């Protein structure tokens, strides 16, 4: 994990995002254990409370599960991962739309480009 201080995204959200992305791309699997709060805080030299806040949010979103006796484990359910994938992609596509607007490329032309690329790019 890494932290970008230049980003306007609060550190706890940067951690949440990275855990989500790692889980979606399969770097983390269900049952994998996240580093303990203190360990991750020391490694990144950030406030342990920030890590705890990130883990709490991941728990609230049912991405991790804490077990009695300690430890936070990835526990993703299919319906969550589908929604998360789509949220993540929507975010990236919104950035592309904003860029197209800034470049003065009309929206319908953008849609054409996208369709064309879908056709040309092999899955």
């Amino acid at each position: 994990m890494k932290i970008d201080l230049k980003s306007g995204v609060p550190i706890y959200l940067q951690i949440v995002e990275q855990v989500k992305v790692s889980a979606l791309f399969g770097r983390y699997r269900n049952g994998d254990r996240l580093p303990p709060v203190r360990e991750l805080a020391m490694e990144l030299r950030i406030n342990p409370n920030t890590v705890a806040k990130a883990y709490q949010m991941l728990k609230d979103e049912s991405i991790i599960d804490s077990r009695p006796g300690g430890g936070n484990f990835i526990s993703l359910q299919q319906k969550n991962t589908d929604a998360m994938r789509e949220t993540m992609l929507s975010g990236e596509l919104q950035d592309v739309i904003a860029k197209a607007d800034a470049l003065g490329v009309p929206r319908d032309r953008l849609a054409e480009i996208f369709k064309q690329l879908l056709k040309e790019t092999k899955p």
Partner: protein
Amino acid sequence: MSENSNAIVARGVRKAYTRKKEVVKGLDLTVKRGAVYALLGCNGVGKTTSIRMITGQLTPDAGEISVLGLDPVKDAVKLRRKMAYVAEGQKLYDWMTIDDLIRFVKAFYPAWDDKVCAHLLKMFGLPQGVKLKDYSRGMYTKAALLAALCRDPDLLILDDPMLGLDTAARREFMSGVVDAIHEFERTVIFSTHIIPEIEALSDYAGIMVDGRLVLEAPVDEIKATFREIRLPADTENIPELPGMISVRVAGEDKIVIAQGEESEMTATFHQAGFRFFTVSAMSLEDIFLAVTAKPGS
């Protein structure tokens, strides 16, 4: 002042060393219990004088200070048991070894924690059997932090402790500080102008200019509201933004720094007919530089 959720409250605090030279000019500062608070300011703005009034080493000329619900001057003895202080250039007992120092300090503090002590000794790699006066500056400062942390203080005050330490020693010192942050239990106030190291550690920041705080807020909130807008250097008629801090030229860019909602800033520039501009977030250090810059510089 009965605000129990606050570890430190200062209101209207003033201090002058001579009649002509007032250093602290009406300080209002609030540090919540359990928070890590970065007190930021350039050299000579009154950080150390403020800290010394908080620790009770100096008496304010005017205003009120409450530390852990106590008066730092009247309740100095009581407060000293609950508070630990590490400052730049602080003197320990030079003729002692680290083991002598531990034995000596431990005798004064009933809450002394041997486990923390053993852990920090190992983590800091402090050589035993060497007199403190023969320690490097980094080792010496780490020894001071160790002596402060083993007392299990409710409030840890760090006054520019990393000044003069090399990068490696600063990193180790910071690890010790990270290790010292317990959930909601310990308040840490950190005075410094080396911002990148402490940015990710701090819950709150207070920026001091000329004897007062000009900004005090949660770090996440500060970072969410300050933005840097870059336009071509020859851009004229920049629209007036509500929270505009500065406009300057750097190389090919004109840089506008403002505090407010990013979407509103973008909308204002769009409405004024601007197409070529970028809006980006800023590091705490860049925000600090913008807020403390003297007009015209």
